[in-house]
């Protein structure tokens, strides 16, 4: 049992980063500290499988698991509630249910949210795959699509999982190839950058795949507005693209309570030191994964790595020792190159992928590994969420 004088750690957010941090802290210091996880939802979602749901016939229920099954309940108190404000001076948290929590260390792992009306016309016009429900709607739209121009891209910056747009594009091409409809379908990829992707070596491979598959790449196209009636996307650069089917990543923002608490920038992203992950003003507040303004991909992989660093730093501080572990920007991800093959990418703040070749050889095994990855993700003893890997 913990006493009232023991250090209190509160983690906001029951996604990948929040659960991993909670499990590591519970395992390592759960007897000498009070660990509380506050989550808006009772279930954790495995988001990467959204892309598979677009093209298969499965339901979405296996993408969810109850927090009470993946978090160590003996060492971590789980509260299903919504945070409305954090007072960093008094170190207190207020929730929608009217509860007040005090903390010595706070981990903000509450991720990003989708704000559809941030881009005019988006909500009426666009399909996406950033929620399982949206992926199922897109599945129906693709099944019913009779031909024409498909526009894929992003509606705003920043956004989660930058490789997903390329994955969708290549998987959609394979889908229409199987349906023998490539003579009727033209796929256009809108990139906000000067190239298809931010990392040159990856970008080169993707651009080669686009060229081979006659997918048209449009660079420096940053969505400004969408006209759902005329079916046109207008860019900040002054260009326009007409579509028959629009598949676009929704606009993202940080959480409202981060803005209301004065802890984030105007869009709700938490400013943190890129190595220590401590808030720029409050060193007992840590930012994890998507919730931050870190210069890395908003992704489950970044949430995984940052949560482990944060947990280790807090453990050292609770033990009265100097926190040493630093985040070096590590991110790993799979990049689907068709419905049945994948690349694997690994990079950091200072290291671009040195070698991503041989994906034509290893593409199939990597795809199979990606398919069974949810088992490793959810396994509460040795999987990703346990914080042991």
């Amino acid at each position, binding site marked *: 049992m913990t006493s009232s004088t023991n250090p209190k750690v509160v983690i906001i957010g029951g996604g990948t980063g929040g659960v991993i941090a909670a499990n590591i802290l519970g395992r390592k210091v759960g007897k000498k500290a009070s660990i509380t996880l506050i989550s808006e939802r009772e279930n954790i979602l495995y988001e990467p499988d959204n892309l598979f749901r677009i093209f298969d016939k499965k339901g979405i229920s296996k993408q969810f698991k109850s927090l009470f099954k993946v978090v160590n309940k003996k060492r971590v108190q789980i509260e299903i509630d919504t945070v409305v404000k954090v007072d960093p001076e008094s170190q207190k948290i207020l929730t929608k249910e009217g509860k007040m929590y005090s903390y010595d260390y706070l981990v903000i792992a509450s991720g990003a949210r989708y704000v559809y009306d941030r881009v005019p016309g988006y909500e009426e016009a666009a399909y996406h795959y950033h929620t399982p429900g949206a992926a199922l709607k897109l599945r129906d739209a693709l099944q019913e699509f009779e031909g024409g121009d498909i526009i894929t891209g992003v509606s*705003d*910056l*920043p956004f989660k999982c930058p490789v997903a747009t390329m994955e969708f594009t290549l998987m959609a091409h394979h889908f229409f190839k199987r349906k023998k409809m490539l003579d009727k379908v033209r796929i256009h990829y809108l990139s*906000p*950058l*000067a190239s298809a992707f*931010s990392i040159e070596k990856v970008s080169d491979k993707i651009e080669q795949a686009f060229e081979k598959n006659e997918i048209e790449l449009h660079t*420096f196209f*940053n969505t*400004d507005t969408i006209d759902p009636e005329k079916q046109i996307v207008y860019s*900040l*650069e*002054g260009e326009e693209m007409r579509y028959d089917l629009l598949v676009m990543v929704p606009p993202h923002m940080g959480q409202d309570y981060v803005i209301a608490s004065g802890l984030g920038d105007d*869009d709700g992203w938490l400013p943190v030191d*890129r190595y220590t992950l401590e808030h720029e003003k409050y060193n007992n507040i840590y930012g994890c994964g998507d919730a931050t303004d870190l*210069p890395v991909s908003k992704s489950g992989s970044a949430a995984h790595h940052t949560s482990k660093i944060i947990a280790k730093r807090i453990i050292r501080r609770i033990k009265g020792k100097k926190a040493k572990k630093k985040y070096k920007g590590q991110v790993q991800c799979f990049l689907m190159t068709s419905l049945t093959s994948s690349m694997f990418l690994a990079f950091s*703040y200072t290291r*671009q992928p040195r070698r991503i070749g041989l994906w034509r050889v290893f593409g199939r095994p990597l795809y199979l590994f990606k398919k069974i990855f949810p088992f490793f993700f959810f396994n509460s003893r040795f999987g990703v969420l346990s914080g042991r890997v």
Partner: protein
Amino acid sequence: MAEERKLIDARGSLCPGPLMALIKNIKRAPIGAEFEVWSSDKGTRRDLPKWVEKAKHELIEIVEEDDYNRFIVRKAR
């Protein structure tokens, strides 16, 4: 002349971080707003001027410091 020039310190971010930070900020700014982007990444020297030209904004100046560049940009439309 803009009343205040917004500083975007993107030193240490790899390309296209500095450019994406500029695009994100310029998108919701009023016409005439000025930005000063600090970038230590060589790719920014290549891509940022290209984007500013394509988007028809104004690249007022590039100042070369010892280990980074300062890009002064005005939102022109």
